[in-house]
């Protein structure tokens, strides 16, 4: 599931869930002087490497390098973080219902430390990632450098429990497990 074509369709109303705490901080950081165009890469929460990474916005591919998106570059990009998503819009403001669905699924599992690239800010990335994954639509989800699929597949994995297992392999404990435990203990 996802969008492939020209402009992003308007976000469908009434689907935004609550914002996780850590995201609010990064949203606040964003509302400053950073232009949306520079916000190709958003990141928040703690880094996987253990150190505290300040929540905030880092630009990917805007400004400086300006070059094409080679397969090697994209290869590095998708492997740099355990969870990588390519969205239309940002996790705070998805510009497409399918991208929003991916964000909400990750939120539900308590996955907060993931790299989100906004393809609307970067036409080269937008086409490049489609070519790289041989997948015609956005959003796209990568776990541990491996292409998982788009919104439909992530949703399916969420429903059949595979996502919990896949996250576990990455050392990420799904928040849904804790929720379940709470329910069981009641």
């Amino acid at each position: 599931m996802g969008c492939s074509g020209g402009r992003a369709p308007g976000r469908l109303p009434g689907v935004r869930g609550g914002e996780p705490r850590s995201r609010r901080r990064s949203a606040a950081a964003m509302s400053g002087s950073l232009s949306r165009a520079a916000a190709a890469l958003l990141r928040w929460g703690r880094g996987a490497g253990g150190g505290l990474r300040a929540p905030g916005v880092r630009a990917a591919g805007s400004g400086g390098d300006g070059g094409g998106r080679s397969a090697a570059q994209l290869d590095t990009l998708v492997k740099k973080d355990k969870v990588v998503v390519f969205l239309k819009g940002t996790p705070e403001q998805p510009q497409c219902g399918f991208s929003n669905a991916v964000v909400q699924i990750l939120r539900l599992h308590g996955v907060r430390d993931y790299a989100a690239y906004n393809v609307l800010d970067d036409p080269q990335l937008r086409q490049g990632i489609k070519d790289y994954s041989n997948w015609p639509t956005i959003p796209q989800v990568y776990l541990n450098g491996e292409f998982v699929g788009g919104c439909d597949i992530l949703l399916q994995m969420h429903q059949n429990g595979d996502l919990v297992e896949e996250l576990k392999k990455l050392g990420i404990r799904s928040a849904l497990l804790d929720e379940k435990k709470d329910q069981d203990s009641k």
Partner: protein
Amino acid sequence: MLSGQLVRHLFSMAGRVCLSRSSAGLGTIGPVEAAIRTKLEQALNPEVLELRNESDAHAVPPGSETHFRVAVVSSRFEGLSPLQRHRLVHAALSEELAGRVHALAIQTRTPAQWEGKTKDSLGRLFLINMGPYK
């Protein structure tokens, strides 16, 4: 569990579409929709093929053929991962996806999965015999 709510949420989103769809004139099948149907039938020989034009729910001119949802039951999906199944659908519709079609939601099942749909909560997401997504 919360996930049930999420699923309902997600599908109310994808699903606003379907709400409007019922009033969207079922009799009008555009050329793109017809092409999608033909190509999927040829490529996948499906036992069940449901196709919806959901464009009306998006910010596109009336009568557009840009946003589709498809559900396919085919024995070609046997032994394939979801990713591989979706790739088959993409391959069959490469021309459309490279052209006017902006969005394509895909659900794939094998005949066995489809048979067992009453026991499978996934089956409830399927298009067939479903009212609007809530």
